C-alpha cells in the first residue's frame, strides 16, 4: 500500500513536471542562430553569439510572458550546411525567426527558405548589397559595403586626396569595394587606379612595389581579415608609410578583435566603418564593459554590435506583435529606430536594410592599447547602391 502511494505520488509529480516542461517548450519563442563557430570564420561566430547572449542577459529574455530561447547552430562557414541547418530549424524546431549568417554566400543560400517558410531572417554579418532583395523576410543589422565606401570616397575627395590606388583581394566583397569607391571618388572629382590581388596571396611585395612606383596620395586596401596585418607589416617594411602614401581602408582592416595584436604598424591608419569599440557614448561604454566582463576580457568588434542590435530588432519586433512571427514580425521590425552602442540606427522600412552613421577613424594608442579613434561622422547613411 505504502509502496503504491509512493509510486502514485511519483507518477503524479512526473506528470506535473512533464506538463510544465511541455507548456514551457510550447510557449517559448525560439530563435535559430546560425553562425560559423568553428573553422576559419570562428571569430565572427564567437563575437556574435557572445553579444546575443549578453543582450538576453541584460534586457531580459521574456516577451509577452513567453521565454525567448536561442538555438545556436554551427555552420562552419559552409553554405550547404547553413541551408540544411536553417531547414531543420524551420521545419523541426519550428523557430519564429532565424538569425546570424557570417558570410554573403551563407545568407544567399538560406534566403529562399526564409521566403518559403515565411520565417523572418535577421542578417547579422554578411555585407553584400543584394542580400535583402533576395527575400522579403530579410532584415539586416550589420552593414553594406557601399554604405561604408561611398561616403568614405566623398570624404577623401573633400579632404584633399585627389588620386587613390585601390588594392583589393579578387573576390566578391573586394570587387564591391573597388567598384563603389572608384565610382564615388570619380564623381567627386578624384582619380582612382585599380589593382586586384589573388585571394590566396602569401606575399604582397610585388604589388607594393607597383604602389611605390605609382606614388598615389592614398592607397585604399581591402583584404580578408587576418591577412590585413600581414599587409600592413609589409607596407611598413618597405618604407611606404614614410613615403607620403596614406594607407586608408574600411574598418575590416583594423578590426577591434585583432587590432591590438598588430602592433605599431597599424598606427595612423585611417579607416571608415560603422562601429569602433572606442566610440564615445554612454551606451557603448556600458556595452564594452559588460561584453568584456562576460567574455574574459575580449573586446567587442563590429560583428558583436551587429549581433546585439539584431537581437534588439527581434525582441522589439516581437514585443509589438505580442510574440507572433511571420510577416507581422518583419513589418514590426521595419522602421524601428534606437540608439545602439554604435550610435543612432534604424531599419529602413522600404529596403529592410540598416541606416547608420559612418565614422572616419584613425588608429591611436589609448591607455596602452590600440583603438580606432573616431574623428569625423557622416550621419544616417542609407545603402547608396539601392536603385542603381
Amino acid at each position: 500500500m505504502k509502496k503504491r502511494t509512493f509510486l502514485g505520488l511519483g507518477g503524479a509529480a512526473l506528470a506535473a513536471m512533464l506538463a510544465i516542461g511541455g507548456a514551457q517548450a510550447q510557449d517559448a519563442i525560439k530563435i535559430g542562430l546560425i553562425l560559423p563557430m568553428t573553422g576559419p570564420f570562428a571569430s565572427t561566430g564567437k563575437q556574435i553569439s557572445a553579444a546575443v547572449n549578453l543582450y538576453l542577459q541584460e534586457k531580459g529574455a521574456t516577451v509577452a510572458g513567453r521565454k525567448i530561447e536561442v538555438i545556436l547552430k554551427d555552420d562552419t562557414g559552409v553554405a550547404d550546411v547553413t541551408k540544411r541547418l536553417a531547414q531543420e530549424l524551420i521545419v523541426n524546431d519550428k523557430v519564429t525567426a532565424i538569425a546570424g549568417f557570417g558570410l554573403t554566400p551563407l545568407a544567399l543560400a538560406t534566403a529562399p527558405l526564409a521566403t518559403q517558410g515565411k520565417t523572418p531572417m535577421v542578417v547579422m554579418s554578411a555585407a553584400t548589397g543584394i542580400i535583402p532583395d533576395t527575400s522579403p523576410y530579410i532584415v539586416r543589422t550589420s552593414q553594406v559595403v557601399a554604405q561604408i565606401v561611398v561616403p568614405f570616397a566623398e570624404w577623401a575627395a573633400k579632404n584633399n586626396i585627389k588620386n587613390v590606388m585601390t588594392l583589393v583581394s579578387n573576390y566578391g566583397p573586394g570587387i564591391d569595394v573597388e567598384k563603389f569607391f572608384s565610382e564615388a571618388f570619380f564623381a567627386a572629382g578624384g582619380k582612382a587606379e585599380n589593382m586586384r590581388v589573388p585571394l590566396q596571396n602569401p606575399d604582397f611585395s610585388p604589388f607594393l612595389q607597383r604602389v611605390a612606383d605609382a606614388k598615389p596620395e592614398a592607397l585604399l586596401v581591402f583584404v580578408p581579415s587576418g591577412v590585413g596585418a600581414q599587409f600592413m607589416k609589409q607596407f611598413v617594411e618597405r618604407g611606404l608609410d614614410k613615403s607620403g602614401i596614406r594607407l586608408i581602408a574600411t574598418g575590416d582592416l583594423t578590426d577591434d578583435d585583432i587590432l591590438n595584436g598588430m602592433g605599431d604598424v597599424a598606427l595612423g591608419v585611417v579607416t571608415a566603418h560603422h562601429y569602433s569599440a572606442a566610440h564615445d557614448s554612454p551606451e557603448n561604454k556600458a556595452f564594452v564593459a559588460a561584453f568584456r566582463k562576460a567574455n574574459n576580457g575580449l573586446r567587442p568588434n563590429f560583428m558583436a554590435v551587429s549581433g546585439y542590435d539584431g537581437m534588439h530588432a527581434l525582441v522589439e519586433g516581437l514585443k509589438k506583435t505580442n510574440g507572433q512571427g511571420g510577416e507581422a514580425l518583419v513589418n514590426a521590425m521595419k522602421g524601428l529606430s534606437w540608439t545602439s552602442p554604435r550610435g543612432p540606427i534604424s531599419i529602413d522600412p522600404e529596403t529592410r536594410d540598416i541606416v547608420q552613421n559612418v565614422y572616419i577613424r584613425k588608429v591611436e594608442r589609448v591607455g596602452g592599447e590600440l583603438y580606432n579613434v573616431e574623428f569625423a561622422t557622416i550621419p544616417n547613411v542609407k545603402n547608396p547602391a539601392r536603385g542603381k
Partner: protein
Amino acid sequence: MKLLTLLVDGIAYGMVLFVLASGLSVTLGLMNVINLAHGAFAMAGGYAAVVLMQKAGLPFIWTLPAAFVLTALAGAVLERLLYRPIYAKSHLDQVMFSIGLVFMAVAGIDYLMGSTQQFIQLPGWLQGRFDIAGVAVGRYRLFVIVLCGLLAFGLQWGFTRTRFGSRLRAAVDDARVARGLGIPVHALFAFTFALGSGLAGLGGVLGVELLGLDPSFPLKFMIYFLVVVTVGGTSTITGPFLAAMLLGIADVAGKYFIPQVGAFIIYALMVVLLLLRPDGLFARQRT
C-alpha cells in the same frame, strides 16, 4: 634598381619556399615516403615560435633553433609511432594517412590556438630596410636569404660529402644490403625524418612574417611545397633549391609586371617545366 629590389624579394620568397619544401624533398626523395603532413610540421614550428615569444618572452632569434629542435623531436616521435609502419605500405595508403594527419593538425590547432592569424614582433634590427648602392633591400629578407643560403649549402654538403650522407643514400637504394653491411637503417631513417621535420618547423617560423600563420597553413601551402618538389626533382638538394628560386622570382616578377594573371604564373611555369622535363629539372636519368 627597382628590378634588383624585386629580385631580392623574389629570392627571399623562394628561399622560404625552399626551407619549407626541403624537408619534404628529403623524405620523399631519399626515403620514398609521401608525407603530405609536411606542412603540419611547418605550422607546428610557427606556432611553437609564437607561443615561445608571446608566453615565454623568448627573443625571435632564439625561437629559430627552438622551433627546429621541437619540431624535429615531434618528427622523431611520430616517425617511431606512426610513420615507420607505413614505410612499406603503398603510396596511396601513405597519402591517405598523411592527409588525415593534416586535417587532425588543422582542427587541433584551431581548437588550441583559435582560428585567427598569429603575429610575431621582429626585433628592431630586422625591421625596415637599407640601401645597398641604391638598391633598397628589406633587412628581414636579406636575413632570410643569408640563413637559408647557408642551410642549403650545409644540406648539400651533408648529403653528398659526409659518411652520414653516403650511408643514407645506401640505405635508400637497398635497405636489406645496407642492413647487412651493419648500417643502422632504422636509426638513419628516424634521424632523417626528424631533420626534415625540423627544417619544416624552421621554415614555418621564417615564413610567419612573409606568408602568415593560421590553422589552414598546411592546406594553403601544400600545393607550393609539391610544386617545388616536383619541378625540382627529389634526388638532390640543388634541384628543389633552384626550383624554389625560379618559382619565387617568377611569382614575384609575374605579379609585378602582369598583376591580372599574377597568381597563375607559378602554375603555368610548372606545367611548362613538367612538359619539358617530366621527372623534374634535375632528376637522375631513369635507368
